[in-house]
């Protein structure tokens, strides 16, 4: 990323669900983006494109009408030219400001897309021929089904699957993360993405995409907004504000005959000029939300992208705000990937030191995280250092699924560790016995959610190492936040129900699905959906694909298989399953921003009436001056101040629209109360001082 400057985008509240450091964040007002957006604001004045936004189109028509009348009056010698000029200018500014907001959001996406496009060079691929030889072709000549060879420093020419070999790959182009990842044939780490680079070794890759359809291509199209379609909620909101615009159009158009009646009846004053009527109309129609609506949507997508998540549609982001149930995989999401030794439990007559010593020795050659955690625990608890076993005569017995134990034969001792049953069998074979209390000990550990690892020295049972799933730090708090947001979190695990229950209670999840097969997952999702809930989940394996496709929000891990990525509607480029929680928060933030600005926009109208109505009829009905509660300077200054406020508020709210409103996880009632107060009541109150200040300024500058 060329200008990946990190900066906090959200308030510095510690309870914030949305983290502050974002790989792809860029400053809100990047000079380059600003320049491009300013230019686009004028291009977007084209009525053909503006017509898609009914509110701003009405403003543009109003501005045009005012301008035409102004020109006519300039030559025909009409009155109040200065006032009309200012009204016309500010009406045009209103449209420009709204265009600018949208252009800003789009420009930010475009900048991202360009950065990506730069990485998309036409590389040379070594295509494998039937004869076993390779030929050099450009990546654009590759078709789905071709097989290519990639060696150290080669750019992988297209999306595909490793069918042979293992390699380290630099995927920073896609993920922004520079640490290399391992890609190997078979299993869930076989997918590779075009544009990434092989750092070591060589692999055979079967290409799975055609040119122009690669992941990178789709990513560019998405961030650029080319594929952006209005989301259902956005369309509905558009209908609402278009409807309100029509109602206000009626109110203002019919005000003309009402005024004519009043003027005829009192014989005083005159019917408001077209400029004033247009000004009133523009002030009343929801220009704030009308101008910012599409920017909010684009920025929401962009925000997801900044979190290194690729949403395939805006609909998916919207749906994530609605999620009721979150399926979280136990391993890697709720717990650290591996179990860790936490305790040595001895049988009668054995010291803990003996057990620790035997356990450590038997684990010295064990490279699994569990084995290493035993070595570490023995060191921490009993000061036992990992010994060089080279000086001893040692033969390591590796773990096998058949024996279900591993160990070492050292200095004539046969140290073994493994599943309780396996070790008991081993001990009995060696002529020893297993006390009943041993089994009880083992069961107790199982019940508490741990995994018992029995240790024996030949015929002698030593004890048990308690292996435990470690719940990630802060997980319980996050799940608590989810609950506050009204979201149920369900832990999915392959463990038995006993173990699952223990971890579930430790992590504080609402429910769990134990011994879950992919089919169970799918059925669970269907059941939740049948009860009217929206479900979100993450997954990476091919067998997750059906569930990912069924879920309302399915986040596939970038490290996952192609099938998983195709099935989900989002891809997390960091492959961090916990990010699901953030995605939900971003979805909610997007919806709240929309609602807040709509409420604010409509609430603003109250003050504008108090500014404009008395000004309009001051000569016809001087008593209406009672409604001039802001004590505005003159009818002209009042109307102008309202129009200027209306225009400036759009530009003032651009940062809010692009960043989203501050969001903290809490229940709907509390959230509603807070936001209604800020954007509803605030929306009614804020324009009063705002218009007043502008009015004073206008009077001071003798502009009205």
């Amino acid at each position, binding site marked *: 990323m060329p200008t990946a400057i990190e900066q906090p985008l959200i308030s510095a509240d510690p309870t914030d669900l949305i983290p502050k450091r974002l790989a792809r964040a860029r400053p809100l007002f990047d000079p380059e983006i600003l320049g491009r957006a300013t230019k686009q604001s004028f291009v977007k004045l084209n009525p053909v494109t503006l017509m898609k936004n009914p509110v701003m189109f009405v403003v543009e028509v109003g501005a045009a009408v005012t301008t035409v009348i102004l020109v006519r009056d300039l030559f025909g010698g009409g009155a109040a030219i200065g006032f009309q000029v200012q009204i016309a200018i500010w009406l045009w500014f209103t449209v420009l400001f709204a265009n600018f907001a949208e252009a800003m959001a789009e420009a930010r996406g475009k900048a991202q897309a360009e950065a990506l496009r730069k990485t998309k060079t036409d590389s040379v691929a070594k295509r494998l021929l039937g004869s076993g030889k390779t030929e050099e072709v450009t990546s654009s000549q590759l078709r789905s089904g071709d097989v290519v060879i990639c060696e150290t420093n080669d750019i992988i020419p297209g999306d595909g699957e490793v069918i042979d070999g293992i390699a380290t790959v630099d995927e920073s182009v896609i993920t922004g993360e520079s640490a290399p990842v391992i890609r190997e044939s078979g299993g869930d780490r076989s997918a590779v993405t075009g544009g990434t680079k092989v750092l070591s070794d060589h692999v055979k890759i079967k290409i799975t995409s055609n040119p122009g359809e690669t992941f990178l291509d789709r990513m560019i199209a998405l961030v650029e907004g080319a594929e952006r379609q209005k989301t*259902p*909620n956005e*369309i*509905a909101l558009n*209908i*609402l504000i*278009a*409807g*309100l615009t*029509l*109602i*206000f159009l*009626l*109110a*203002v158009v*019919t*005000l*003309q*005959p*009402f*005024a004519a*009646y*009043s003027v005829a*009846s009192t014989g005083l004053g005159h019917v408001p000029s077209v400029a004033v009527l247009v000004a009133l109309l523009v002030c009343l129609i929801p220009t704030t939300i009308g101008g910012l609506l599409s920017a909010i949507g684009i920025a929401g997508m962009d925000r997801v992208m900044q979190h290194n998540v690729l949403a395939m549609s805006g609909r998916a982001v*919207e749906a994530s*705000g*609605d999620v*009721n149930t979150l399926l979280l995989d136990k391993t890697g999401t709720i717990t650290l990937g591996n179990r860790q030794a936490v305790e040595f439990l001895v049988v009668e007559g054995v010291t803990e030191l003996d057990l620790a010593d035997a356990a450590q020795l038997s684990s010295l050659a064990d490279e699994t995280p569990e084995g290493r955690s035993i070595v570490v625990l023995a060191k921490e608890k009993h000061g036992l250092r990992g010994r060089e076993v080279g000086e001893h005569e040692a033969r390591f017995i590796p773990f096998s699924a058949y024996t279900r134990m591993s160990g070492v034969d050292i200095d004539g001792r046969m140290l073994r560790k493994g599943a309780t049953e396996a070790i008991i069998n081993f001990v009995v074979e060696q002529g020893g016995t297993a006390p009943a209390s041993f089994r009880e000990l083992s069961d107790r550990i199982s019940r508490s959610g741990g995994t018992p690892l029995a240790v024996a020295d030949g015929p002698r049972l030593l004890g048990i190492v308690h292996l435990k799933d470690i719940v990630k730090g802060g997980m319980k708090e996050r799940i608590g936040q989810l*609950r506050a*947001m*009204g*979201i149920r979190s369900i832990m999915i695990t392959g463990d038995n129900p006993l173990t699952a229950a223990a971890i579930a209670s430790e992590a504080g999840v609402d429910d769990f699905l134990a011994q879950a097969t992919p089919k169970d997952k799918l059925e669970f999702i269907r059941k939740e959906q049948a*009860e*009217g*809930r929206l479900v979100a989940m993450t997954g990476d394996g091919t067998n997750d694909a059906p569930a990912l496709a069924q879920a309302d929000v399915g986040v596939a891990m970038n490290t996952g298989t192609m099938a998983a990525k195709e099935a989900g509607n989002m891809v997390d480029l960091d492959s961090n399953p916990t990010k699901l929680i953030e995605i939900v928060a971003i979805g909610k*933030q997007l*919806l*709240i921003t*929309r*609602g*807040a600005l*709509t*409420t604010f926009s*409509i609430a603003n*109208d*109250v003050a504008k*009436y108090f500014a404009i*109505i008395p000004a309009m*009829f001051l000569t016809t*009905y001087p*008593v*209406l001056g009672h409604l001039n509660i802001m004590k505005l300077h003159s009818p002209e200054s009042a109307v102008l101040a309202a129009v200027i406020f209306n225009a400036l508020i759009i530009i003032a709210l651009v940062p809010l629209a692009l960043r989203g409103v501050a969001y903290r996880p809490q*229940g*709907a*009632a509390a*959230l*509603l*109360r807070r936001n*209604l107060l800020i954007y*509803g009541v605030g929306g009614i109150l804020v324009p009063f001082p705002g218009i007043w200040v502008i009015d004073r300024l206008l009077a001071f500058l003798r502009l009205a």
Partner: protein
Amino acid sequence: MTTPGVLQIVVFFLVVVALTKPMGLFLTQVYEGRRTFLHPVLRWLEALIYKLCGIREDEEQKWTQYSFALILFSVVGVVLAYVLQRAQGHLPLNPQNFGTPVMTPDLAFNTAVSFVTNTNWQSYSGESTVSYLIQMAALTVQNFLSGAAGIAVAVALTRGFARQQVKTIGNFWVDLTRGVVYVLLPLSIVGALFLCSQGVIQNLKPNVVVQTLEGAQQVIPMGPVASQESIKMVGTNGGGFFGANSAHPFENPTPLTNFVQLVMIFLIPAGLTYLFGRMVKDTRQGWAIFATMSLLFLIGVAITYPAEQAGNPILTKLGLDSTSGNMEGKEVRFGVSASSLFAVVTTDASCGAVNAMHDSLTPLGGLVPLFNIETGEVIFGGVGAGLYGMLLFAIVAVFIAGLMVGRTPEYIGKKIEQKEVKMAMLALIATAASILIFSGISSVVDFSKTGYWNPPGAGTANLTNSGPHGFAEILYAFSSGAGNNGSAFGGINTNTPWYNLTMGLDMLIGRFLFIIPLLAVAGSLAAKKRVATTSGTFPTHGPLFVGLLAGTVVIVGALTYFPALALGPIVEHFLMYSGKLFAAVVGSLPIWS
């Protein structure tokens, strides 16, 4: 304000609160087709109607079929009412020999539409225009049917919320029949008997001419009043037998009948809020709607009553005693409190009966009824109309503010999406357009005095008052029409082809372009899945929602009509306090109500 005055309002409100649940339970039984305590007496009638009309009781309709049935039924109703009125000279029960000339085609059209749409706007005075047969067979019949149709729509919309993943929303013919047989008929019979006991007349005699003490001759009108009076209230129709409506001693003789009539207006609308909660299986939702309506009702009374009690400052300055308040246009037997309460209640509901002349209310006192009508009469509202109108606002409120909880909007477990928003906006726009455009044209339009359309000349020539008060009269008339209220500010002669036809259209738009979109909403909602409720769901049963909903009603109404209201009652209010009044401009026209 006086203590008895305030007490009367408080007691009235408490009685409504007390009746809401029992009435709602009964209505729920009726519309869910369960057995009620009236079944032993009335089931045969219901069954007979089904048999005669070939209605299959267990057959359900999609929203399109339901709407079609409603429209078809209304068209037939309009045609029948029109023909009967035009032919009244040739029909029996016409002791005053009202001929066809008084019932002009435009007036007959206006009246037919008016009664079929539950508006009961009357461009005529019953005692000088309409025969007893027409009063009974055309008008009273429509009072029952239009009321039952309104309730049917509200129940159908409620079913939309209550059901899930089905295509149908009930059967219009069955809902209509049940509403008439079990609800409106028994209530009106009981009501009519009570009113008779209090002195309301019920006969078919010709008018009585008597010699007064001064020796002058006075005509005392007669007729089958009680039977029409009762349904006029419980069906929130509001079309009086006499021009003076419930101010007439033969319609509303005593303070007790006045009180009972007030309760009759709110009885079914209040009960329907409970039915709503009951049918969606969360009575809190119904009470929240009830609370919103109550809040707005009490605010309305709290503005009107003091405004009327304060009287006219100009008269006070002249040294007149202001302790009795503004008694102009009010009946002495009711006084300021009962009249203010009646004005608010009749416009909260789309009843439109009056016991005092709204034209003579103080500007603020008159602003409240006008605003009540313009916000769609959702404060208890017309039978059915109040509930479906308030649900429309609930949809709008939830859609705007619901996003602020971070979910796409939902109400009663139903997602509020494109279709619902589109239909809600369509209904709001249609009503606003009708009121504003017709009022706008009528304020400036000019006709030839010799022409057909408007013999008085300009659209404003029909007014008896000038200035903002005159304007308010026009605005009130079209608001009353589109809102299907039927009460009049008075002071405007609308019995000309121009006003009769435009108001007829106004009433049709206000009724059907409001109902059809809402039935579409009902159909769309019924087809949806019910979303699970969690602590992340927008709570729509607490005080917060009540405040939000009330705020939405007021703000949407205020934003739409503020400019018009500013040039009417608002400016008149300020002018009155600066010492200016708007007296009648031309001699004296008859009082139209």
